[in-house]
């Protein structure tokens, strides 16, 4: 279909193709040209051959010398007065990245959206006015795409960021110390205590947990050792570090004590046996349903203190139900925390120090993390008194899902107690924040100045989504940053605000890089012209929500690509349009290029293929 002058400008370097028959003598304008967004489809359908096509910027204003029919590329022999564009000589028509072409380069598999090269055109109006136009691929088919950038772009971006600036003094704003205590065995006993590396949990504590929460009808406590990994479990609602603050320390600073080798795991169903989860749940054999080593997941070898909480029937989809399961579990954790506070310093096996460093003069960036806020299990307690505790935490749903600014160290110190337990592969467990890769990478990257992290909830209804999104825009504006990340967990509904955050930030002229699971199943349902730099968190083989815990969450490899991409975007390097179909190779190429530039190899995490095949996966997925 014919395009507007604005679209023509965006696609200045794309091939010029007539949308309709045009007669000799026509002076070519945007309205005579086919939309490059559908070229892939046209080429696929055999409708279009772009050989010899001049670019849009070359032909606008030129005169057609022969009558030509629709879908004919405009070639030099049928126009007079075509412009010679200098760059066009060096960098011929922007044909989708082929293998080994010098311009093809780092890309991240991404959802397709309205931006340049996107095929999914969507207009987001004012909340109630959302037009979805999904011309190609369809969502079912997945329309992920990719946003490449060229290798030399990354290079130049780095140069642009690091070289010309007057580097100010690094400034340590605050520090956080983690003291690690090792646990090798967990047993039940008459009292909760830690002796050496053995943790004892008081027998009968379960009854108090049940007693404490009206909606909890039963709570079973299991100690899962590596030998027991092949144990059936109800859906995993959370994985939590067992950590506590030393006296007078607050979350995000001072000293935190944490147990190594053991984690808390919340699982559960309602009294009818319905999993607490809606779109997929991770019930099944633990060893078949946990993606080991993801930031939010257990490490292989760790002991799980696993509660199996039964909540009143039907409350699994209401807010109080899942919260009750978490609160009941936290009674056990809290008893352990009290014991930890009294542990001898001599038991500390490792001390870690996190510095929140500001780097004046470097490119100032912020991380906006979208967290679930639709209610039910889609909630997060923000800033509890203890790391990943309950007490003192405010549900972000109750906060109206408005953006809340936290320090990177608060994130790493468990300021989020996550209640997101559905869509297990893409949701961020509490432990994820404890080891949040993007925060860690950005904090440690000497080339950028990470000024903070903003959590914003994803409300259920669109009007609220745009409400919170506008607040994100204002907050980011006030921070006066040079670039921003927007991350999200899950997919679908939350992509509406995810897209809106990009728009709010992008329209203020601030480069923005998005991170989300998209691939096939999570292909974006909305988009806008600011969503051009995207990193896909997908790790699964087929690009799907495979119900394997943590499989498609943000990992270091994603954080590194995102950082490279944001640096490139800040340096105003063009990020190539997305590929039409999800192509995992885009990610590999980007990884390779990022690692070539940084000189550091990037090791990729494994995916569900490394796990024993579960019956569920066999039937439903792979």
């Amino acid at each position, binding site marked *: 279909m014919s395009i507007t002058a604005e679209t023509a400008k965006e696609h200045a370097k794309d091939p010029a193709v007539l949308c309709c*028959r045009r007669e000799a003598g026509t002076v070519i304008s945007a309205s005579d040209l*086919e939309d490059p967004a559908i070229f892939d489809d*046209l080429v696929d359908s055999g409708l279009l051959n772009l050989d010899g096509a001049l670019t849009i910027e070359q032909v606008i204003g030129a005169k057609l010398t022969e009558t030509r029919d*629709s879908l004919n590329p405009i070639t030099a022999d049928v126009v007079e007065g075509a412009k010679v564009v200098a760059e066009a000589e060096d960098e011929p028509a922007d044909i989708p990245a082929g293998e080994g072409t010098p311009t093809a380069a780092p890309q991240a598999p991404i959802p397709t959206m309205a931006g340049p090269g996107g095929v999914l055109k969507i207009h987001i109006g004012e909340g109630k006015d959302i037009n979805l136009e999904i011309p190609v691929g369809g969502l079912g088919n997945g329309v992920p795409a990719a946003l490449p950038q060229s290798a030399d772009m990354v290079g130049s971006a780095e140069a642009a960021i690091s070289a010309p600036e007057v580097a100010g003094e690094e400034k340590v704003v605050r520090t956080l110390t983690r003291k690690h205590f090792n646990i090798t065995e967990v047993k039940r006993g008459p009292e909760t205590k830690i002796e050496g590396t053995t943790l004892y949990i008081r027998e009968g504590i379960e009854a108090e947990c049940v007693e404490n929460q009206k909606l909890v009808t039963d709570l079973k406590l299991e100690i899962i050792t590596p030998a027991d990994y092949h144990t059936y479990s109800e859906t995993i609602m959370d994985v939590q570090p067992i950590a506590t603050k030393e006296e007078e320390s607050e979350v995000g600073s001072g000293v935190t004590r944490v147990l190594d080798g053991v984690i808390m795991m919340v699982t559960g169903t309602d009294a009818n046996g319905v999993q607490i989860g809606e779109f997929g749940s991770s019930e099944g054999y633990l060893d078949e349903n946990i993606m080991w080593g993801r930031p939010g997941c257990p490490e292989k070898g760790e002991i799980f203190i696993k509660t199996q909480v039964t909540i009143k029937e039907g409350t699994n989809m209401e807010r109080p139900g899942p919260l009750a399961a978490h609160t009941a579990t936290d009674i056990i954790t809290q008893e352990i925390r009290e014991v930890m506070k009294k542990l001898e310093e001599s038991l500390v096996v490792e001390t870690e120090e996190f510095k929140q460093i500001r780097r004046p003069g470097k490119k100032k960036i912020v991380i906006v993390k979208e967290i679930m806020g639709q209610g039910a299990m889609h909630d997060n307690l923000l800033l509890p008194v203890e790391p990943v505790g309950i007490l003192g935490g405010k549900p972000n749903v109750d906060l109206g899902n408005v953006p809340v600014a936290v320090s990177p160290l608060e994130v790493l110190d468990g300021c989020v107690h996550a209640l997101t337990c559905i869509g297990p592969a893409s949701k961020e467990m509490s432990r994820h924040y404890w080891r949040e890769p993007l925060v860690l990478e950005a904090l440690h990257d000497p080339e950028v100045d990470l000024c903070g992290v903003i959590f914003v909830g994803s409300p259920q209804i669109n009007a609220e989504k745009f409400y919170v999104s506008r607040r994100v825009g204002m907050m980011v504006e006030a921070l006066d940053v040079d670039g921003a990340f927007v991350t999200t967990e899950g997919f679908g509904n939350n992509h509406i605000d995810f897209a809106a955050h990009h728009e709010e930030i992008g329209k203020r002229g601030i480069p923005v890089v998005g991170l989300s699971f998209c691939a096939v199943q999570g292909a974006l349902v909305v988009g806008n012209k600011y969503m051009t730099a995207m990193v896909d968190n997908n790790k699964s083989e087929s690009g799907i929500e495979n119900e394997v815990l943590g499989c498609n969450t943000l990992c270091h490899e994603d954080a590194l690509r995102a950082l490279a991409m944001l640096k490139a975007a800040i340096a105003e390097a063009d990020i190539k349009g997305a590929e039409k179909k999800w192509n995992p190779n885009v990610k590999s190429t980007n990884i390779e290029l990022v690692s070539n530039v940084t000189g550091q190899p990037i090791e990729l995490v494994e995916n569900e293929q490394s796990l024993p095949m579960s019956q569920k996966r066999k039937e439903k997925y792979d």
Partner: protein
Amino acid sequence: MENVQILLCQHVGAPCAPIVQVGDSVKKGTLIATPTGLGANIFSSVYGVVEEIKEDRIVIKPDEEQPEEFEPIKEGDKLEMIKEAGIVGMGGAGFPTGVKLSTQLEGGYVLVNAAECEPGLYHNIRQIEENVEATVRGLKYCMEITTAKKGIFAIKEKNDKAIKILREAIKDEENIFIHLLADIYPMGEERAVVRECLDILLGVDKLPSAANSVVINVETLLRITEAVEEKKPCFSKNLTVNGLLKDGHKPHVFFDVPVGTSVGTLIEMAGGIAEDEKLGEIILGGPFTGKSTTLDVPITKTTGGVIPTMEFMDFHGANVGLLVCACGGNEGRMRELADKYNGKVVSVVRCKQAVEMKNGALKCEDPGNCPGQAEKCIKMKKDGALYTIIGNCSDCSNTVMGSAPKLGLKVVHQTDHVMRTIGHPLYRHLTISKKADQLPNGK
């Protein structure tokens, strides 16, 4: 002679209110209904007796004798007489002409729509050929009333004979000119006429007055002349009966058919439907914008055509995509056709340029100039369509042909069954220029 049914709404606006009673004797030209809002007077088209008054029509039993004389309208100035005569846009739109001409163009243009754009209709051109003098006088009255400085006949270049006659008729008229149109659809769309004659593309919500002009159908001019010179009320209609007729699918032009005559009577007047052939449907109006009808339906002041068609091809239940646009039928009409073709609608797409107006009708942003259709074809194909039924203009149909067949999407135009019946080329590829060469100095 069958009863005449005179509809109370034959125009843009509210239905008229009857002012006669059952049993009243009426003559040709007796005022029988008057406007209740925007509208135009309605007159009896026959001598007879009012037999029935229904909510939407007055039924008159005609007398055996039907003299030529009619009851004249009352004397007044020209504009008053046009209003009094109940004249409306006879090209199909039915906007009350008296209201349209109540404007001072002060140096603007009266554009005469003589495009006769719907294929298969011939009565407008025949009128020019046979009654050019009265037609030109009608234009002059319009120019006088509106103080326009120029009158322009917009007529398709293919009509050699009519153009020759028209050129002769206006050669001494200082302010009247001819603008030739290419033989493509929809050159007769009001805004297309303005664009072609004045090179001004009006927005979909704009009237020709925004280009300091009015557009008047060629038959309307004739009715104006009749009202002004003969005090004749508007109660008859010129039209074409074409299609699946006994005498070999030839057009029959009828002048001054009494409003209220039934489709069946008109078909009989044209010799009747060919008996050895299977009837597809009967269209009231033109192939693009007409609707399917039945034999008992009466014609109105805006009816231009009655077209019985050959039977429909059978899609055998195949999946169909509808490409709805402003040039052809609305979605309802397209769905009706899909049914008649025995197809199953799996996809409905709308041309990018078709804008929905407040009343639900579609208008084209730039009639006859395609905005591209490849994406729509891909969409229909993806939705599983094997056939597409399109109602597009010549240019858009051509664009559809640039992609649909290669996609394996079989193209059927909304007008195909009519075009096949009357032996007119199908709307597919466009091979002529959209611009016509003009006469020297428009003369």
